């Protein structure tokens, strides 16, 4: 930055140009002022009139949400048009009279209508939803009394409908208005109050695809908010349809078999990870969310101790009980601690030092080999086998099979369960003891799993050692049929387990159903492999009479044993023995899957290219 005497000084070069620049800017500003003069002074009155008495309004035209269908195209969730009543508070010039009139038509308390109208206080130009889904009589009444109801309008809007009833409610989720808490967040800043949003399950996770794009109308309205003319309209774009991996027939069979029970049933294709059915009870009626819920109604649902909104399939966790014995067996066979010939005696009890551990069968099973121990679910055998195998090996194999980690369904928070973390004795800590191992060997104590995790585990046993990511969405397709996204099976990892080990276990599980504790799951003509489990809720003797404290009943299975196409997990909360309450549910599911008119045997319509289950 020097001042060079030879070249002209900056001011000499720049000054004339700067002057030109200032002149140009000045002229531009003058032009602006002229334009402002035109708009504000010359045409000011006209624009003022436009802005007050005759107004331009933009009204959204809601896009219909995409359907949710099962793998064969059976509709699980669709839309139906409803007549909804709206009020634009600014135009409701006499709210008390309007509220009284509406109360009569809608057969609702005046106070409730008044409260709804008052809600729009700080947004007087926004249409406010007063009541959804008016019936014909109400609509006629509203139309007749139009003149007495300034600011009130009826609009046809799409509402969620469930032609299959409430099946798979926890999986599908529900749709409701965006709530106050959500509106505060930046991610929802473009949402209008009253706009619908998928709030749980598939509706939520895939909301971006399902919701479509709203259109709108530019409408000129008069001082009373009544539309004078439609200036223009932008058509909404429908949302995309979601094809689930669920098979409606199997789902319905599972729902029916689970009537009156609490817990969950999940069916999956063990060679692909496709979820064929998912039941979670207690459940809820998704239709109830279509109407606006009051704060009290919401609280009741949220506080319900039975957690109907929870999807127990992957969000709840329980001790696996005897199902965990499969892990002990596999760990033993792999490390060599156990062989198919390994025998232990079972007199009905087992002493570890001074502590006595009982078997569920008084009198015991006698001396058993490994297969018999699995078939008869002998606790005492596994107490001893577990000590021989060791807690580390047991846990290592369990972890390899996916226990202790969330399965990765992508439908929301997943229970991770927990596996033992044996620590040596330290100051203040008792450390891991043999007694802990004994308890863990039968799937109690520090072992906790979600039903989904056990299903993955059984599937890996069935398919020869591959863990697949479970998934529920097969395909996302636009209304035109154009496929936007297709999901393929995703093998997560292949376990390095000897094929002989898994083959042995499969055969033992076949024995469970044919001769053993799982006989209630037997279906003639279909070789089914399974394992029963009973998870204690409280220690023996404590409050056993109390129904809420009864043991949970498990049953895991797969079929057909030689070429598995379906794997099932059943968990009946507080149901008692797994073989008694859970196995029959699995039987119903297998019957539906393989029966005479089963989806497996179904002829596919020519235009839908769907893989057979097991493809």
């Amino acid at each position, binding site marked *: 930055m020097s001042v060079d005497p030879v070249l002209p000084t900056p001011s000499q070069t720049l000054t004339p140009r700067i002057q030109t620049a200032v002149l140009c800017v000045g002229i531009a500003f003058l032009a*602006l002022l002229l334009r402002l003069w035109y708009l504000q002074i010359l045409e*000011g009155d006209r624009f003022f009139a436009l802005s007050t008495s005759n107004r331009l309004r933009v009204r959204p035209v809601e896009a219909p949400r995409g359907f949710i269908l099962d793998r064969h195209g059976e509709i699980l969730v669709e839309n139906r048009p409803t007549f909804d009543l709206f009020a634009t508070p600014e135009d409701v010039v006499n709210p008390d009279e309007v509220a009284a009139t509406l109360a009569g038509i809608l057969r609702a308390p005046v106070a409730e209508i008044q409260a709804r109208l008052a809600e729009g206080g700080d947004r007087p*130009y926004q249409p406010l939803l007063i009541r959804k889904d008016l019936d014909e009589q109400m609509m006629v009444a509203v139309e007749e009394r139009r003149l007495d109801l300034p600011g009130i309008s009826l609009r046809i809007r799409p509402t969620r409908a469930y032609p299959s009833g409430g099946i798979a409610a926890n999986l599908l989720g529900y749709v409701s208005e965006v709530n106050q808490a959500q509106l505060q*967040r930046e991610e929802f800043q473009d949402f209008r109050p009253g706009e619908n949003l998928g709030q749980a399950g598939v509706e939520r996770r895939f909301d971006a695809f399902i919701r479509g794009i709203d259109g709108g109308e530019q409408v000129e309205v008069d001082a009373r908010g009544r539309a004078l003319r439609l200036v*223009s309209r932008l058509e909404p774009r429908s949302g995309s349809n979601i094809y689930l991996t669920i098979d409606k027939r199997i789902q319905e069979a599972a729902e029916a078999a689970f009537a009156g029970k609490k817990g969950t049933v999940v069916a999956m294709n063990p060679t692909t990870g496709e979820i064929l059915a998912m039941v979670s009870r207690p459940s809820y009626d998704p239709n109830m969310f279509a109407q606006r819920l009051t704060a009290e109604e919401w609280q009741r649902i949220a506080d319900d101790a039975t957690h109907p909104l929870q999807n127990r399939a992957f969000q709840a966790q329980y001790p696996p009980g005897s199902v965990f014995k499969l892990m002990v067996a596999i760990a033993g066979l792999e490390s060599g601690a156990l062989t198919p010939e390994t025998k232990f005696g079972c007199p009905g009890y087992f002493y570890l030092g001074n502590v006595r551990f009982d078997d569920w069968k008084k009198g015991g099973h006698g001396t058993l080999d490994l297969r018999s121990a699995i078939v008869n679910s002998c606790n005492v055998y596994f107490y001893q086998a577990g000590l021989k195998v060791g807690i580390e090996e047991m846990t290592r194999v369990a972890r390899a099979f996916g226990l202790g980690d969330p399965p990765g369904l992508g439908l929301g928070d997943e229970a991770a369960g927990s596996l033992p973390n044996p620590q040596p004795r330290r100051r203040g800590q008792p450390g891991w003891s043999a007694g802990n191992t004994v308890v863990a060997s039968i799937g109690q104590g520090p072992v906790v799993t979600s039903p989904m995790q056990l299903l993955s585990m059984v599937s890996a046993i069935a398919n020869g050692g591959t863990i697949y990511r479970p998934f529920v969405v097969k395909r996302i397709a636009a209304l035109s049929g154009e496929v936007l996204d297709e999901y393929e099976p995703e093998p997560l990892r292949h376990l390095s387990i000897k094929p002989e080990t898994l083959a042995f276990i499969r055969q033992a599980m076949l024995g469970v159903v044919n001769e053993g504790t799982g006989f209630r799951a037997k279906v003639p003509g279909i070789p089914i492999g399974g394992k029963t489990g009973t998870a204690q809720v409280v220690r023996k003797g404590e409050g056993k009479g109390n129904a809420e404290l009864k043991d949970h009943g498990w049953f895991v299975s797969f079929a057909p044993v030689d070429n598995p196409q379906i794997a099932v997990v059943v968990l009946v909360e507080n149901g008692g023995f797994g073989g008694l309450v859970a196995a029959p549910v699995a039987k119903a599911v297998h019957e539906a899957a393989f029966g005479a008119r089963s989806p497996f045997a179904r002829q596919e319509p020519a235009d839908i290219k769907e893989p057979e289950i097991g493809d």
Partner: protein
Amino acid sequence: MFDRRLLTHFDWSFVAAILGMAALGILTIYSANTMATSAFRKSLYLRQTLWAGMGMVGLIAACLVSYRTLWRFAYVIFGVSVALLVLVLVMGKTGMGAQRWIRIAGFAFQPSEFAKLGLVLFLARYFDDQRNAIRDVRGLLLPVGLSALCMLLVLKQPDLGTALLLGFITLSMLLMLGLQWRRLMPVIIGGGALAPLLWVALKDYQRRRILVFLNPDLDPLGAGYHIAQSKIAVGSGGAFGKGWLAASQSQLNFLPLNHTDFIFAVLAEQWGFLGCLVVLLTYFYLITKGFQIARDCTDLFAALLASGISTMLAIQVLINTTMVLGLMPVVGIPLPLLSYGGSSLLVTMLGMGLLLNIHMRRFMY
């Protein structure tokens, strides 16, 4: 570094004008969002205040640094702003379908705003170094090339408005330096031939913007709507405006972006012709003051810097207001000091600080 004597040259009325505009901006944003449906939107004026505070600090910092330091680091600062432009493309936070922001400590910074200042600094320094560059095309290759690079990076975000702005700034500074129109001819002709190519390169909605400008009825819910509503809002303000918080047209959801690109419409509706006159006069004052400072410089770098910053301010004000008044297609350029936008506010105040800096030190060299 800090000399008592500098204080005597501190231009208080200049600073007062800047602060006054920033305050007006905060008030107008507050009023624009009174009808907003989300609590987040309603609190935006508080965020703007925070940014204004940072802007003040930046302004003072820009005054204190010696412009020898600025001169030394001009290329570095430019390099950093280009790097940030690349960074935002790679990892930027997406909002409104564009990748424009980088998040640091809860604040979102827009590198394209900082690139404006960076470009001005670069051009000022370059032409101070290369006195003869303006004379022939070869000397222009580097600055124009780098400027085009910035434009391209910004265009990729996509941000058509700021890309155009960068182009305008470069062009104005070249003209300021004495670029002759004759030299411009081949460029203009070449540009004219390239226009169809440019049309193809524009994104769908950008083309729509231009078409809608020519015929607003094409897009009644989008840009056409914007323009129609903006004119109604502005015009309905009349001579004296509707008054504080009474700008119903622009407060309602009928004028989207009312707190950002269309803030002038809110102002016009509230304060009418009188209010607009005051605001425009203040802008004019700031701009001419800036050019005055440039003219009084004995140092070429400082003169270029000052005129570059003034040009930057002038072009943005003109583009934004003509857009709001329906005289230009809708391009996303914020109105300096008034629009909601932390990075824009910060960069404008930094620029003003630099002008003050040059003004204060004009007798030191």
